[in-house]
Protein backbone atom coordinates (compact mmCIF):
# COMPACT_ATOMS: atom_id res chain seq x y z
CA UNK A 1 0.00 0.00 0.00
CA UNK A 2 1.90 3.02 -1.23
CA UNK A 3 1.65 6.17 -3.31
CA UNK A 4 3.95 7.19 -6.12
CA UNK A 5 5.47 10.65 -5.95
CA UNK A 6 2.89 11.97 -8.42
CA UNK A 7 0.00 10.39 -6.54
CA UNK A 8 1.31 11.89 -3.31
CA UNK A 9 1.39 15.39 -4.79
CA UNK A 10 -2.07 14.91 -6.26
CA UNK A 11 -3.34 13.90 -2.82
CA UNK A 12 -1.63 16.89 -1.17
CA UNK A 13 -2.99 19.30 -3.78
CA UNK A 14 -6.55 18.04 -3.92
CA UNK A 15 -7.38 16.06 -0.82
CA UNK A 16 -5.24 17.54 1.97
CA UNK A 17 -5.29 21.19 0.93
CA UNK A 18 -8.83 20.93 -0.43
CA UNK A 19 -10.11 19.53 2.86
CA UNK A 20 -8.28 22.18 4.90
CA UNK A 21 -9.73 24.88 2.66
CA UNK A 22 -13.25 23.56 3.17
CA UNK A 23 -12.79 23.40 6.94
CA UNK A 24 -11.36 26.92 7.10
CA UNK A 25 -14.16 28.25 4.90
CA UNK A 26 -16.88 26.63 7.00
CA UNK A 27 -15.39 27.99 10.23
CA UNK A 28 -14.76 31.41 8.79
CA UNK A 29 -18.21 31.64 7.27
CA UNK A 30 -19.89 30.70 10.57
CA UNK A 31 -17.79 33.31 12.36
CA UNK A 32 -18.53 36.03 9.82
CA UNK A 33 -22.24 35.25 9.76
CA UNK A 34 -22.55 35.66 13.52
CA UNK A 35 -20.88 39.09 13.59
CA UNK A 36 -24.16 40.88 14.26
CA UNK A 37 -25.11 43.48 16.84
CA UNK A 38 -26.50 42.11 20.10
CA UNK A 39 -25.51 38.47 19.59
CA UNK A 40 -22.31 38.40 21.65
CA UNK A 41 -20.87 39.81 24.85
CA UNK A 42 -17.69 41.84 24.73
CA UNK A 43 -15.74 38.81 25.98
CA UNK A 44 -17.44 36.64 23.39
CA UNK A 45 -16.41 39.03 20.63
CA UNK A 46 -12.76 38.88 21.68
CA UNK A 47 -12.80 35.10 21.78
CA UNK A 48 -14.67 34.78 18.47
CA UNK A 49 -12.46 37.23 16.61
CA UNK A 50 -9.27 35.31 17.39
CA UNK A 51 -10.72 32.20 15.75
CA UNK A 52 -12.01 34.21 12.82
CA UNK A 53 -8.59 35.78 12.19
CA UNK A 54 -6.93 32.37 12.26
CA UNK A 55 -9.60 30.75 10.08
CA UNK A 56 -9.54 33.50 7.44
CA UNK A 57 -5.74 33.55 7.15
CA UNK A 58 -5.52 29.74 7.12
CA UNK A 59 -8.03 29.72 4.27
CA UNK A 60 -5.95 32.23 2.33
CA UNK A 61 -2.66 30.41 2.90
CA UNK A 62 -4.19 27.05 1.99
CA UNK A 63 -5.69 28.54 -1.19
CA UNK A 64 -2.23 29.78 -2.20
CA UNK A 65 -0.68 26.40 -1.46
CA UNK A 66 -3.37 24.63 -3.50
CA UNK A 67 -3.04 26.78 -6.63
CA UNK A 68 0.76 26.84 -6.52
CA UNK A 69 1.12 23.07 -6.11
CA UNK A 70 -1.63 22.52 -8.67
CA UNK A 71 -0.15 24.82 -11.31
CA UNK A 72 3.57 24.28 -10.85
CA UNK A 73 3.76 20.63 -9.74
CA UNK A 74 0.69 18.63 -10.79
CA UNK A 75 -0.42 20.49 -13.93
CA UNK A 76 2.79 19.89 -15.96
CA UNK A 77 2.24 16.12 -15.52
CA UNK A 78 -1.31 16.55 -16.79
CA UNK A 79 -0.49 18.62 -19.87
CA UNK A 80 2.80 17.16 -21.13
CA UNK A 81 2.51 15.95 -24.72
CA UNK A 82 3.56 12.30 -24.89
CA UNK A 83 1.41 10.81 -27.62
CA UNK A 84 2.76 12.65 -30.67
CA UNK A 85 4.29 10.33 -33.25
CA UNK A 86 5.02 11.90 -36.63
CA UNK A 87 1.89 13.71 -37.79
CA UNK A 88 -0.43 11.84 -35.45
CA UNK A 89 -0.89 13.89 -32.28
CA UNK A 90 -2.52 11.02 -30.39
CA UNK A 91 -0.71 7.94 -31.73
CA UNK A 92 0.58 7.10 -28.26
CA UNK A 93 -2.97 6.89 -26.94
CA UNK A 94 -4.14 4.21 -29.39
CA UNK A 95 -6.10 1.57 -27.51
CA UNK A 96 -5.59 3.24 -24.12
CA UNK A 97 -8.27 2.91 -21.48
CA UNK A 98 -6.38 5.22 -19.09
CA UNK A 99 -3.44 7.62 -19.39
CA UNK A 100 -0.07 5.87 -19.49
CA UNK A 101 3.61 6.53 -20.21
CA UNK A 102 2.89 7.38 -23.88
CA UNK A 103 -0.42 9.17 -23.29
CA UNK A 104 -0.67 12.00 -20.72
CA UNK A 105 -4.05 12.81 -19.14
CA UNK A 106 -4.52 15.72 -21.54
CA UNK A 107 -3.54 13.57 -24.53
CA UNK A 108 -5.93 10.92 -23.32
CA UNK A 109 -8.89 13.27 -22.91
CA UNK A 110 -8.32 15.08 -26.22
CA UNK A 111 -7.84 11.85 -28.18
CA UNK A 112 -11.34 10.53 -27.43
CA UNK A 113 -9.92 6.98 -27.49
CA UNK A 114 -12.10 5.99 -24.56
CA UNK A 115 -15.40 7.67 -25.33
CA UNK A 116 -16.28 11.32 -25.75
CA UNK A 117 -13.75 12.81 -23.33
CA UNK A 118 -12.43 15.91 -25.09
CA UNK A 119 -14.92 18.26 -23.41
CA UNK A 120 -13.51 17.28 -20.02
CA UNK A 121 -10.33 19.03 -21.10
CA UNK A 122 -11.79 21.79 -23.29
CA UNK A 123 -14.31 22.89 -20.68
CA UNK A 124 -13.51 21.27 -17.33
CA UNK A 125 -9.75 21.63 -17.17
CA UNK A 126 -9.65 24.93 -19.04
CA UNK A 127 -12.11 26.49 -16.60
CA UNK A 128 -10.58 24.92 -13.50
CA UNK A 129 -6.99 25.87 -14.23
CA UNK A 130 -7.84 29.54 -14.74
CA UNK A 131 -10.68 30.46 -12.40
CA UNK A 132 -9.15 28.84 -9.32
CA UNK A 133 -6.49 31.55 -9.25
CA UNK A 134 -9.27 33.92 -8.17
CA UNK A 135 -9.65 31.93 -4.93
CA UNK A 136 -6.41 32.96 -3.18
CA UNK A 137 -6.77 36.57 -4.34
CA UNK A 138 -10.28 36.85 -2.89
CA UNK A 139 -9.45 34.84 0.23
CA UNK A 140 -6.43 37.05 0.98
CA UNK A 141 -8.40 40.26 0.40
CA UNK A 142 -11.22 38.98 2.65
CA UNK A 143 -8.73 37.95 5.36
CA UNK A 144 -7.14 41.40 5.20
CA UNK A 145 -10.51 43.12 5.56
CA UNK A 146 -11.43 40.91 8.52
CA UNK A 147 -8.08 41.64 10.19
CA UNK A 148 -8.22 45.37 9.38
CA UNK A 149 -11.74 46.08 10.60
CA UNK A 150 -11.98 43.34 13.24
CA UNK A 151 -14.97 43.69 15.60
CA UNK A 152 -16.03 46.88 13.80
CA UNK A 153 -17.64 44.56 11.23
CA UNK A 154 -20.36 43.89 13.83
CA UNK A 155 -21.59 47.47 13.58
CA UNK A 156 -21.26 47.68 9.79
CA UNK A 157 -23.60 45.13 8.22
CA UNK A 158 -23.03 46.35 4.69
CA UNK A 159 -19.26 45.93 4.98
CA UNK A 160 -19.70 42.52 6.62
CA UNK A 161 -21.88 41.47 3.67
CA UNK A 162 -19.23 42.69 1.21
CA UNK A 163 -16.60 40.59 2.98
CA UNK A 164 -18.93 37.59 2.91
CA UNK A 165 -19.39 38.06 -0.85
CA UNK A 166 -15.61 37.96 -1.33
CA UNK A 167 -15.28 35.01 1.04
CA UNK A 168 -17.98 33.07 -0.85
CA UNK A 169 -16.46 34.11 -4.17
CA UNK A 170 -13.17 32.53 -3.11
CA UNK A 171 -15.04 29.39 -2.12
CA UNK A 172 -16.98 29.26 -5.40
CA UNK A 173 -13.77 29.51 -7.44
CA UNK A 174 -12.25 26.75 -5.34
CA UNK A 175 -15.34 24.58 -5.78
CA UNK A 176 -14.96 24.75 -9.57
CA UNK A 177 -11.35 23.69 -9.19
CA UNK A 178 -12.06 21.00 -6.63
CA UNK A 179 -15.06 19.47 -8.37
CA UNK A 180 -13.49 19.33 -11.83
CA UNK A 181 -10.22 18.19 -10.29
CA UNK A 182 -11.98 15.24 -8.70
CA UNK A 183 -13.85 14.36 -11.91
CA UNK A 184 -10.76 14.70 -14.09
CA UNK A 185 -8.63 12.62 -11.77
CA UNK A 186 -11.29 9.91 -11.94
CA UNK A 187 -11.48 9.90 -15.73
CA UNK A 188 -7.84 10.61 -16.55
CA UNK A 189 -5.67 10.16 -13.46
CA UNK A 190 -2.14 11.53 -13.21
CA UNK A 191 0.22 8.57 -13.63
Amino acid sequence: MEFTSRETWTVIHGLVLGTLFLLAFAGGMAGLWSLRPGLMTTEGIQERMKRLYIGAWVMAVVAWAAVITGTWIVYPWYRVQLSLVGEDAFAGCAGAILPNETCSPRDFLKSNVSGNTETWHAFGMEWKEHVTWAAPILATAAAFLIAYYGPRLIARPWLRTAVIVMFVGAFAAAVVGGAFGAFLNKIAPIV
Partner: protein
Amino acid sequence: MITDFNPGRHDDVSVASELGPLNLADKPDGPGAAAMISAGIGIFVLGFFTTAAVISGGIKSFLLWWEWGQGVGPLAGKSTLAILAWLISWLILDLLWRKKDVELKTAFYIGLGLGILGAIGTFPTFFELFH
Protein backbone atom coordinates in the same frame (compact mmCIF):
# COMPACT_ATOMS: atom_id res chain seq x y z
CA MET B 1 -15.46 59.37 -3.13
CA ILE B 2 -12.06 60.17 -1.53
CA THR B 3 -11.80 62.50 1.47
CA ASP B 4 -9.35 63.13 4.29
CA PHE B 5 -9.69 60.71 7.18
CA ASN B 6 -12.39 61.75 9.63
CA PRO B 7 -11.96 59.81 12.92
CA GLY B 8 -15.58 60.44 13.89
CA ARG B 9 -17.10 59.17 10.68
CA HIS B 10 -18.23 55.83 12.07
CA ASP B 11 -20.12 55.64 15.36
CA ASP B 12 -19.92 51.88 15.82
CA VAL B 13 -20.83 51.88 19.52
CA SER B 14 -24.22 53.44 18.82
CA VAL B 15 -25.00 50.47 16.54
CA ALA B 16 -23.41 47.75 18.69
CA SER B 17 -23.01 48.85 22.31
CA GLU B 18 -21.06 45.68 23.14
CA LEU B 19 -18.12 47.23 21.23
CA GLY B 20 -17.88 50.06 23.80
CA PRO B 21 -15.56 48.33 26.29
CA LEU B 22 -13.18 47.43 23.46
CA ASN B 23 -12.40 51.15 22.90
CA LEU B 24 -11.86 50.66 19.17
CA ALA B 25 -10.43 53.69 17.42
CA ASP B 26 -11.93 54.53 14.05
CA LYS B 27 -9.82 53.65 11.02
CA PRO B 28 -9.62 55.17 7.54
CA ASP B 29 -11.51 53.23 4.88
CA GLY B 30 -8.81 53.78 2.24
CA PRO B 31 -6.93 50.52 2.92
CA GLY B 32 -10.20 48.55 2.80
CA ALA B 33 -11.12 50.14 -0.53
CA ALA B 34 -7.64 49.40 -1.87
CA ALA B 35 -8.02 45.70 -0.96
CA MET B 36 -11.41 45.50 -2.70
CA ILE B 37 -10.42 47.20 -5.95
CA SER B 38 -7.04 45.50 -6.27
CA ALA B 39 -8.64 42.05 -5.89
CA GLY B 40 -10.94 42.95 -8.78
CA ILE B 41 -7.95 44.14 -10.83
CA GLY B 42 -6.10 40.86 -10.26
CA ILE B 43 -9.05 38.75 -11.37
CA PHE B 44 -9.72 41.03 -14.32
CA VAL B 45 -6.10 40.66 -15.53
CA LEU B 46 -6.41 36.88 -15.13
CA GLY B 47 -9.50 36.80 -17.33
CA PHE B 48 -8.09 39.33 -19.78
CA PHE B 49 -4.97 37.28 -20.49
CA THR B 50 -6.94 34.02 -20.59
CA THR B 51 -9.06 35.39 -23.43
CA ALA B 52 -6.22 37.37 -25.04
CA ALA B 53 -4.13 34.19 -25.33
CA VAL B 54 -6.87 32.69 -27.50
CA ILE B 55 -7.11 35.77 -29.68
CA SER B 56 -3.40 36.45 -30.19
CA GLY B 57 -0.57 33.99 -30.82
CA GLY B 58 1.90 36.70 -29.85
CA ILE B 59 0.33 37.15 -26.42
CA LYS B 60 0.23 33.39 -25.95
CA SER B 61 3.97 33.20 -26.69
CA PHE B 62 4.62 36.04 -24.24
CA LEU B 63 2.63 34.21 -21.54
CA LEU B 64 4.54 31.02 -22.27
CA TRP B 65 7.81 32.79 -21.49
CA TRP B 66 6.81 32.95 -17.81
CA GLU B 67 6.86 29.18 -17.34
CA TRP B 68 10.68 29.05 -17.00
CA GLY B 69 10.81 25.67 -18.72
CA GLN B 70 8.57 24.00 -16.13
CA GLY B 71 5.92 22.76 -18.59
CA VAL B 72 3.13 24.90 -17.17
CA GLY B 73 2.38 26.56 -20.52
CA PRO B 74 0.68 29.96 -20.89
CA LEU B 75 -1.09 29.50 -17.54
CA ALA B 76 2.22 30.48 -15.92
CA GLY B 77 2.07 33.93 -17.50
CA LYS B 78 -1.64 34.43 -16.95
CA SER B 79 -1.45 33.62 -13.25
CA THR B 80 1.86 35.37 -12.58
CA LEU B 81 0.79 38.59 -14.31
CA ALA B 82 -2.56 38.52 -12.50
CA ILE B 83 -0.78 38.20 -9.15
CA LEU B 84 1.65 40.98 -10.04
CA ALA B 85 -1.20 43.26 -11.15
CA TRP B 86 -3.06 42.50 -7.93
CA LEU B 87 -0.11 43.08 -5.60
CA ILE B 88 1.24 46.18 -7.36
CA SER B 89 -2.21 47.80 -7.60
CA TRP B 90 -2.85 46.97 -3.95
CA LEU B 91 0.46 48.52 -2.92
CA ILE B 92 -0.11 51.69 -4.95
CA LEU B 93 -3.73 52.17 -3.85
CA ASP B 94 -2.84 51.47 -0.24
CA LEU B 95 -0.03 54.03 -0.29
CA LEU B 96 -2.34 56.60 -1.90
CA TRP B 97 -5.30 55.97 0.41
CA ARG B 98 -3.67 54.87 3.67
CA LYS B 99 -4.81 58.00 5.51
CA LYS B 100 -7.92 58.72 3.44
CA ASP B 101 -11.55 57.82 3.66
CA VAL B 102 -12.75 56.20 0.46
CA GLU B 103 -16.40 55.35 -0.21
CA LEU B 104 -16.40 51.61 0.40
CA LYS B 105 -19.60 50.85 -1.51
CA THR B 106 -18.18 52.43 -4.66
CA ALA B 107 -14.88 50.59 -4.18
CA PHE B 108 -16.66 47.29 -3.65
CA TYR B 109 -18.81 47.67 -6.77
CA ILE B 110 -15.75 48.60 -8.86
CA GLY B 111 -13.95 45.52 -7.53
CA LEU B 112 -17.02 43.36 -8.05
CA GLY B 113 -17.48 44.57 -11.64
CA LEU B 114 -13.83 43.92 -12.48
CA GLY B 115 -14.03 40.51 -10.80
CA ILE B 116 -17.13 39.51 -12.77
CA LEU B 117 -15.52 40.59 -16.04
CA GLY B 118 -12.41 38.61 -15.12
CA ALA B 119 -14.44 35.53 -14.25
CA ILE B 120 -16.22 35.76 -17.61
CA GLY B 121 -12.82 35.94 -19.28
CA THR B 122 -11.79 32.64 -17.68
CA PHE B 123 -14.97 30.86 -18.79
CA PRO B 124 -14.22 28.50 -21.72
CA THR B 125 -17.57 29.02 -23.45
CA PHE B 126 -16.71 32.72 -23.63
CA PHE B 127 -13.05 32.65 -24.65
CA GLU B 128 -13.61 29.86 -27.19
CA LEU B 129 -15.83 32.32 -29.09
CA PHE B 130 -12.57 33.96 -30.20
CA HIS B 131 -10.86 30.79 -31.37
